[in-house]
Each structure stands twice: as C-alpha cells, then as structure tokens.
C-alpha cells in the first residue's frame, strides 16, 4: 500500500515536471484567487473595526431645562435605563455643565463674558446616553419625545453621526461587493485554467493512461497522480497567498493603527485565526482543483 502510494506520488511529480509551465500558471491563478478572497476578508475586518470605533464615539445627549427638579431627573433616568438596549447613562449636573462649557470656550472670552452677563447658571443638566447599536437611539428619542417629557427636555443631538455610519456602511458594502465580484472572476478563471491544465496533462499522457488501464492498473493508480497534483498545486498556492497575506498585514497595520485605535489588527487576526482561514481556503481550493481535474479526467477513465 505504501509502495503504491509512493509510486502515485512519483507519477504525479513526473506529470508536474512535464507540464511545468501550465502548473505554474495554475498556481498563479489559484494564488490570485486566494489573495482576492484575503483582500475581501481584510477590507471587511478594517471596515468593521472602523465602524466599531465610530459607534463607540456616538452618544445621545439629552439637554434638560434648568428648572428640572432632582426627582424629575431621577424618574427620567430610570425610564431611559429601562430600555434594554441602553448600555450606559451618565448625568452631567448643572454645575458640571457650566464647568464643561467654560472649559470648552476658555479661548473665547466674549462667550465667557456673555455667560457672566446672564448672571445665574443658564445651563441645565444633561444625560449622555450610550447604546451598543446607534440604531437603538431611535427608541430613546421616541421615549423622550412623548408629551409628558416636553417640559423637561430642552434639546437633543445625534442625527449627524447616524448619517456618518450610514455612509460608511454603504461604502463598505460597495467595496465588499467589488471584492466579491473580483473573487468570483478569479474563481471562474481558476476553474478554466485548472481544467485546461488537467486536460492538457491527461492528453499528453493518454498513451500512459491507456497502458495503465491495459495492464490492470486500478482507478487509484490512474486518478491518484492527478489527485496528488491537485493537492500539491493547492498547497503551494495556499502557502504563497498566506505568505503574501502575512507580509501585507505587516505592511498595512501601522497605517490603520491610529485610525482604529488598535495596533496590529490584521496581523493579530491572522495569527489567531490562521487555522480557520487557511483551513477554509484550503478546502475551497482543494474542492475546486479536485472537482475540476475529475471533470477533465472523466472521458479518459472509461473502460
């Protein structure tokens, strides 16, 4: 059994040597396919991280009227907290709001002077509310828009960030669609090239295949070398694409670190998911090459 296995490997290496340029072409196309899939994955990771960063910066500020009592503040706070999607509610008191205002406009003395003209603290307390998903702010807005709270609430802000998220999501979706289309195109090219490779290989070896059948070789001895070739081509392609991906992540990561607030996003992901990524891609490429080679061999394996 082991002897047969080594012989099949020997035959497959001989076949690869005879059709070396075609084998190289196949490896190139398979590698491009994997790189395009990896690009798709990278774009997805970066955009997801970017959206997460933006979402973390989004909050809903609810400015209350200065006349609001502590009891009313407490009731409203409880109401907001009762919404399951609310992650955090922070209250800024009137005094704190004034301090924050002064700090924010310390370089603009005319504004600070205007504040002194008013005399009393004109600012009311405010809630800063955070949810996991910006979409959930709608629920809070709906709650505080009820007439019973109209006398308590001065103003609220959050619309602009929602638009920004929608824009990013749209751009990301377009990029992913493009990368998916490129991957699909490379997939088609890969199928064609792999099919041609095996057709040419089988055609050039038709005499050998015929003799193998004539002298009683079983199907494993006839199909085996092409199966091994498919495994070899897939393994080399995967190796090259993973190498390219590793180099690319090392090069790209420093540029995204300041934007995303985390260093080595792609490198860390690749390190922690290497088995999953490599395993999935290997299965896909193996299926592609084995299925295509089986299709190419079909007519030569009839009795």
């Amino acid at each position, binding site marked *: 059994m082991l002897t047969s296995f080594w012989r099949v490997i020997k035959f497959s290496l001989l076949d690869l040597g005879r059709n070396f340029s075609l084998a190289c072409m196949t490896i190139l196309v398979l590698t491009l396919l994997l790189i395009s899939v990896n690009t798709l994955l990278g774009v997805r990771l970066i955009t997801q991280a970017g959206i997460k960063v933006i979402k973390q910066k989004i909050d809903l500020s609810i400015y209350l009227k200065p006349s609001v009592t502590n009891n009313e503040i407490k009731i409203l706070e409880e109401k907001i907290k009762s919404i399951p999607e609310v992650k955090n509610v922070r209250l800024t008191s009137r005094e704190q709001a004034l301090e924050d205002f002064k700090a924010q406009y310390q370089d603009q003395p005319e504004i600070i002077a205007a504040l002194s003209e008013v005399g009393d603290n004109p600012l009311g307390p405010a809630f800063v509310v955070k949810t996991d998903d910006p979409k959930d702010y709608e629920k809070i807005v709906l709650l505080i828009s009820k007439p019973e709270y109209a006398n308590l609430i001065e103003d609220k802000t959050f619309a602009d960030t929602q638009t920004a998220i929608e824009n990013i999501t749209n751009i990301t979706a377009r990029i992913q669609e493009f990368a998916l289309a490129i991957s699909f195109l490379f997939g088609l090219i890969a199928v064609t090239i792999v099919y041609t490779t095996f057709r040419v290989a089988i055609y050039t070896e038709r005499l050998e295949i015929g003799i193998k*059948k004539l002298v009683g070789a079983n199907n494993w001895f006839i199909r085996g070398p092409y199966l091994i070739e498919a495994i070899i081509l897939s393994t080399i392609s995967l190796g090259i694409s993973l190498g390219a991906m590793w180099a690319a992540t090392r090069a790209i990561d420093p540029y995204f670190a300041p934007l995303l607030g985390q260093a080595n996003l792609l490198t860390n992901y690749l390190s922690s998911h290497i088995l999953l990524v490599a395993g999935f891609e290997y299965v896909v490429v193996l299926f592609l090459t084995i299925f295509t080679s089986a299709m190419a061999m079909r007519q030569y394996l009839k009795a």
Partner: protein
Amino acid sequence: MINLHGVSKKYGRESIALHNISVSIGAGEFVSVVGQSGTGKTTLVKLLIAEERPTNGKISIGGWDITKIRQSEIPLLRRQIGVIFQDFKLLPNKTTTENVAFALEVAGERTKRIREIVPRVLDIVGLNSKSRNFPHQLSGGEQQRVAIARSLVHRPKILVADEPTGNLDAINTHEIIEILKKINSFGTTVVLVTHNREIVNHLNRRVISLSEGTIMSDEEQGKYKLT
C-alpha cells in the same frame, strides 16, 4: 476458458460489429481468429478485455461472467488476460525494463518482486541483453517482444494478440509467432487475431473465421480460407 454465448455488439442502431457469436475456447488452446478488416475481430478483442460491453449475449472467462463486469473489477480481469497490439503501445521515455516493470508497478507489486520477475520475462522473449534500450533503439520485432514480456508479467491464463505482426517483416513475424507458441506451450491460452494467411497456415491450429460479424467457420486444424 473463454465462452461466448449469443454475443452481439452494436454501435448505434445501424452498425452491427458482431452478430450472435457463440464460441468456446478451452484452456491451453492456440486459436487464430481471422477475417478481413471490419469483420469484428478487434471488437471481439475489446469484449474479451472488457473495453466494450456486449449488446446481447453472455461472455465468461475462466468461469467468471464478465458480461456486466463492474468497473472496479476490470483491473483484476486485465491482470488475467495479457494483451498485445499491432502498435506495441510502449512508453517511449521508458527503457525495456521500465516498460515491463510499469505493468507491475501500477498493479502495486513490491519493488523486490518486480526485480525478480522482469528479468525472467525478458529472458522468455530473449531481450535480456536490451533491457536498458529505449523503444526507439529497438527493431519492430524487439518492441513487440517487449510488449509480450509486459503482457506476461502477471502470468496471465490468456494472451490475446491483436494483429501482433501487422507492422513486422517476415523474419520478425516468424520470431513473434515462435514466442507465442512457446508461451502457449507453458499452458497459456493464446488467441491470435490476424489476417496474415502465411501465419495461420503455418500454425496449423484451430482457426475461427469471421465474416460480417458472424462466425463463418471454426476448424480444429484450419487454414486461412478468406479471399
């Protein structure tokens, strides 16, 4: 050893290669199958090695019904039937030894055993001295002897020779026929498909004559009767 009962082979609706053939060939026989081109001789060979399936009828070899042989069983059948052809079917980039060993390699035979068997069969066909030659360095007769050696490595019970001397001159033809007789003397059943009148008449063995896909005559010590 070989039994065909009511065997027909049609290609499409119109083309009938063999029609209702019934014949038995016993163990150790040397049978010549003669007929002009297109009479179904090669189809008969293809049916014997299960390269084709009969449209009707039954074929058995050594008691094994191969009429509806499974794909996975064909290699086992082919190890029991040696086959040689007019065009030798040798691998040009392999030496004599490698061509013969190839048949054993693909059958999964151990390397040590291959090294024992190959010189022995090359000795039977008288080619030990040319074991390292490539096919293009051999004469037509020598190439056919390599093919015969290759067909013998599995010690087949039957040897089917499809026009083995078609590409050979008189001297080489004679040598090949002598080797086939020698193999037959070891007990191997030999089925020789030919349209060479001299060979058939010289052999003076059983002759089955085919005409238009049917058996025209079957004589124990026959002569070539076709015109």
